[in-house]
């Protein structure tokens, strides 16, 4: 029986992507640095995907077909990654998600004031500032924070996108 080369490539991509998800979950549970662990584990699994596809196709396909299969593998893996990451970050960092979880922990209801006291606070800003410092977008100077050149480029890029889409202050 001949297996369709594109289908076998997609199966390889799916298997390696599942391995990546397992690795990422293991990293989260063992408190690895989330972003670095995410990128490293994905890069390793993506490389393994390409090697597997090349190894499986080499005896059967060559030239353009092999290139097509590698391209399909890379594109499919990248698409799965861009769908996976926002879903994960929503669960990890969204304030709306954190609010639902807090309400659940508190038996389903809380005063609006207590929610504001919990989430609209200096502590939340301080926590995000530390994340931005760790990511290299800000530098801490005594108790104040300054943009790095990387942070300035990102801020200007997104300020432009906000203006382009007429999004208002947002955030």
């Amino acid at each position: 029986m001949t297996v369709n080369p594109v289908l076998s490539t997609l199966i390889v991509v799916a298997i390696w992507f599942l391995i990546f998800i397992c690795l990422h979950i293991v990293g989260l549970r063992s408190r690895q640095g989330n972003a670095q662990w995410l990128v490293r584990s994905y890069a390793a699994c993506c490389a393994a995907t390409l090697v597997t596809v090349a190894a499986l196709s080499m005896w059967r396909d060559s030239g353009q077909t092999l290139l097509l299969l590698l391209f399909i593998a890379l594109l499919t893996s990248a698409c799965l990654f861009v769908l996976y990451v926002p879903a994960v970050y929503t669960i990890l960092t969204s304030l709306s998600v954190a609010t639902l979880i807090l309400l659940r922990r508190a038996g389903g209801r809380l005063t609006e004031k207590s929610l504001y006291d919990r989430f609209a606070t200096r502590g939340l800003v301080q926590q995000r500032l530390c994340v931005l410092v760790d990511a290299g977008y800000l530098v801490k100077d005594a108790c104040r924070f300054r943009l790095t050149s990387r942070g300035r480029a990102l801020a200007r890029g997104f300020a432009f996108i906000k203006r382009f889409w007429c999004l208002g202050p947002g955030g």
Partner: protein
Amino acid sequence: MTLIYLGCVILAALIWFATSVDLGFLAPSLLIEPGWLDFSLMLFYFSAAFFGGALQLYNLADRGFSLRILIDVEETDSDAVDADWLVANYAGGRGLTWMYGKRIEGLLETKFVDRKADMIELTSKGERAAAVLLAIHRFLRLEPQS
């Protein structure tokens, strides 16, 4: 956004059916067969580009908390800011209370919570979502967000 997506999907499907498989220049070794697989991959790649690309960029620009902090620091006259300044001036001077109010309004609009007098309560939909999210947080051993 959903209408834009559906419109583009319909257009892409019409173009796919109206054009020849090899587009008049592709070598046979570069064609994906059978046709249903080619069509399915086209829809998947387009959907991933839309939901993982364009829509995420839009959401990040519209609601990204960390990005808005960076933009606020960039737009201030001062070279550096502290946490207290951001609490008061987040999102172009609106402040953190405004930001969290927007989140609460979003949860109310999507009917995950109800407002009763000064209380915020989970709806049945919110209960189900919160139970799943809490289970995921526990499985991932995430600390309650402070």
